[in-house]
């Protein structure tokens, strides 16, 4: 038997896929984990890439979201995100991460 191990990446690796669902750049969005209430940018989550993409909380390991790509469509499950916060000023990437919170 061959064990296929998932690639372990960061949430920024699904920035392109998330752009299919969200109008605002989503990896810079602050997500609150529904399980442990840890808050951080989606891009900083732990991404497991196998047949699909599973993004987990870096704090507690709970599933935040799943994305599956099919040839003609994409699915997203936002299983473990209690809330998302995006910046609506001109540059969502301009925040100093040490001063925003």
């Amino acid at each position: 038997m061959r064990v296929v191990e998932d690639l372990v990446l960061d949430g920024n690796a699904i920035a392109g896929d998330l752009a299919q669902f969200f109008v605002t750049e989503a990896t810079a969005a602050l997500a609150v984990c529904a399980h442990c209430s840890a808050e951080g940018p989606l891009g900083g989550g732990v991404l497991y890439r196998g047949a699909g993409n599973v993004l987990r909380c870096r704090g507690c390991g709970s599933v935040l979201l799943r994305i599956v790509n099919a040839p003609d469509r994409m699915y997203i499950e936002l299983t473990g995100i209690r809330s998302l916060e995006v910046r609506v000023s001109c540059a969502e990437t301009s925040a100093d991460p040490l001063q925003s919170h």
Partner: protein
Amino acid sequence: MNTLVLDVPGWPGHHAGQHVDVRLTAEDGYQAQRSYSIASAPATAHLELTVERLDDGEVSPYLTDVVRESDVFELRGPIGGYFVWLPHLRRPLALIAGGSGVVPLMAMLRHRAAVRVAAEVAPARLLYSARSADERIYNAELERLASEDEDLRVAYALTRTQPSGWTGYRRRIDRAMLQDVIWPADAAPLIYVCGPTAMVEVVATELVELGHPAPAIRTERFGPSGKP
């Protein structure tokens, strides 16, 4: 390693650290997609990608060996808002690269060099780990940038083989090296780490142990390939 210079009609511009998704479609309709970091600075006319050839890859052998001038392929991007550096972020800029992980960090250093003439920018340090001297990319350019700019320091760690007379580090990145090269936590640097998953894991853990707050550490892992 191959640097592609792309002419992208309607390119909206990008931030240093962003990537693009490259999609190739075979004649039978089979599609393969991979992400590649942008190497060029935002103000550059053409988009540059530096691609490492992975022997068992589906996309990189095409982009390193097969692709020819005037070939056309599909790009999605610019992508990402998390692993991004903007010049107005005035905190000291600490960049830590493993192998081809230097590519998005090079975009940051190129951008910083381009705006430095007209505006004040934060000091920067790059700690770059590669297996051997020959595997370093952008070597001459990094040397030039560092010689022109006293606020930029570049340090190398060669993990497998070192040329004779090598005075840089001869081991994988560890805590002592981070303490030598990167600012301490009370200087509040912004830290970008890009490289193979295992290397990024070690570096991020050590940085937290050294007291750097998690929000100040931004990471980009690119999988298990390219053992340091």
